[in-house]
């Protein structure tokens, strides 16, 4: 605890850097995955390509991906852009499948009724399908958020600041308390981000309240 008290500014700084890498990646993977997941759900032929393709991304080891991205993006190895892009790719890998599954789990009678009532495909998507898939989408993005917050730390070995810096610094200087602070801090941050998502879901999905 002493270490934490004496080095609070360092930890606070690391926490903010961590959030600035994780939050854009989580938001981007949601925004990009929902249309992709919808395509996978709507057009049968694309499901295999999109779902299998995105799960292949997930098979890529994170540190090597962070090293390869600069060569593709033209960024420097220590650029935080690489981290955001890599984490977004992992987020998409998980979220496209969740989105397609959430949409596929909607009662077909409901969708058919909407079609019978004369809903256009676009109106049906926004007024019927997405609202009903909401809880499934929320569950998907919560998984993405927790794993993203944990994955950010890997970038510390390349010199990109985050809570992971507490691991590299703690290891090099032999400070066990610093590493434990990093682990606990990362876990707490994951819980915090998860709680925020649940709160957002509670506000946006009043019809799902009390069910989950």
């Amino acid at each position, binding site marked *: 605890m002493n270490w934490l008290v004496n080095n609070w500014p360092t930890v606070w700084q690391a926490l903010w850097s961590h959030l600035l890498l994780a939050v854009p990646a989580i938001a981007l993977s949601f925004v990009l995955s929902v249309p992709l997941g919808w395509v996978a759900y709507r057009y049968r032929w694309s499901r295999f390509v999109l779902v299998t393709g995105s799960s*292949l991304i997930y*098979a*890529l*080891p*994170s*540190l*090597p*991906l962070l*090293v*390869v991205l*600069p*060569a593709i993006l033209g960024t420097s*190895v220590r650029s935080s852009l690489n981290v955001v892009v890599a984490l977004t790719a992992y987020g998409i890998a998980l979220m496209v499948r969740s989105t397609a599954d959430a949409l596929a789990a909607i009662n077909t009678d409901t969708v058919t009724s909407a079609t019978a009532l004369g809903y256009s495909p676009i109106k049906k998507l926004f007024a019927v399908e997405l609202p009903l898939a909401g809880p499934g989408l929320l569950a998907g993005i919560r*998984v993405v958020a*927790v*794993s993203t*917050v*944990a*994955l950010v*730390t*890997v970038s*510390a*070995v*390349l010199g990109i600041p985050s*809570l*992971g810096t507490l*691991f*590299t610094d*703690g*290891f090099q200087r*032999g400070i*066990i308390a610093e*590493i*434990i602070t*990093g*682990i606990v801090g*990362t*876990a707490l941050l*994951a*819980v915090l981000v998860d709680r925020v998502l649940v709160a957002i879901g509670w506000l946006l999905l009043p019809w799902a309240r009390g069910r989950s």
Partner: protein
Amino acid sequence: MNYFVEAFAWIADPAHRTGPDGIWTRLGQHLAYTLIATGAAALIGIPLGYWIGHTGRGKGLIVGATGAARALPTLGVLTLIALFTGVGVGAPLAALSVLALPSVLAGAYAGLEAIPAPTIDAARAQGMSEWQLLSRVEIPLGLPHLIGGLRSATLQVVATATLVAYVGGGGLGRFLFLGLKTQDYPQMLAASFLAVALAIAGEICFAVLARIAGRRHHALSNR
């Protein structure tokens, strides 16, 4: 594009292949880490997962373990254990096994959990003992889930084994960190390509295994 050419030239250079710091040695270390850590996780995770799945006791452990595994930063676990045990192969093996355990545990458990209750009842009604039920019904039917669990565990270990070089444990990550220290980007890129290739090779192996198990599973269900 130039970097890619340089990286492939680095891999193609025979001088980088052999010797105590060559690609083959590091690849061997990487594979050894993967096999031993996944093996250790399987040794603990499979019996425990089967026990929980068979008896239905301690389900909370599965939920807790898989949730914690997702939130646990691998680098943190690795550096923490390395500080306690010192530089060497012990810390990486312990850390990698810990990281692989939840996936194996969840896979073994999910395989048993997914079997429809009437199937279990039918096996009991035929007079099968608990042991026969486990060995003849539950384990064969749960095999695809178990393979899925082993697959994610192996994938996770192959990926994390790249970090092991950070705490002095060797493996393919060695080239990556060496390149980082000497500002030799092509070498870092070459190491990354090798690590990615290994991960993809692992994926393919498990896809084949899953297909074989799936076919057996299909044959069993139609019996």
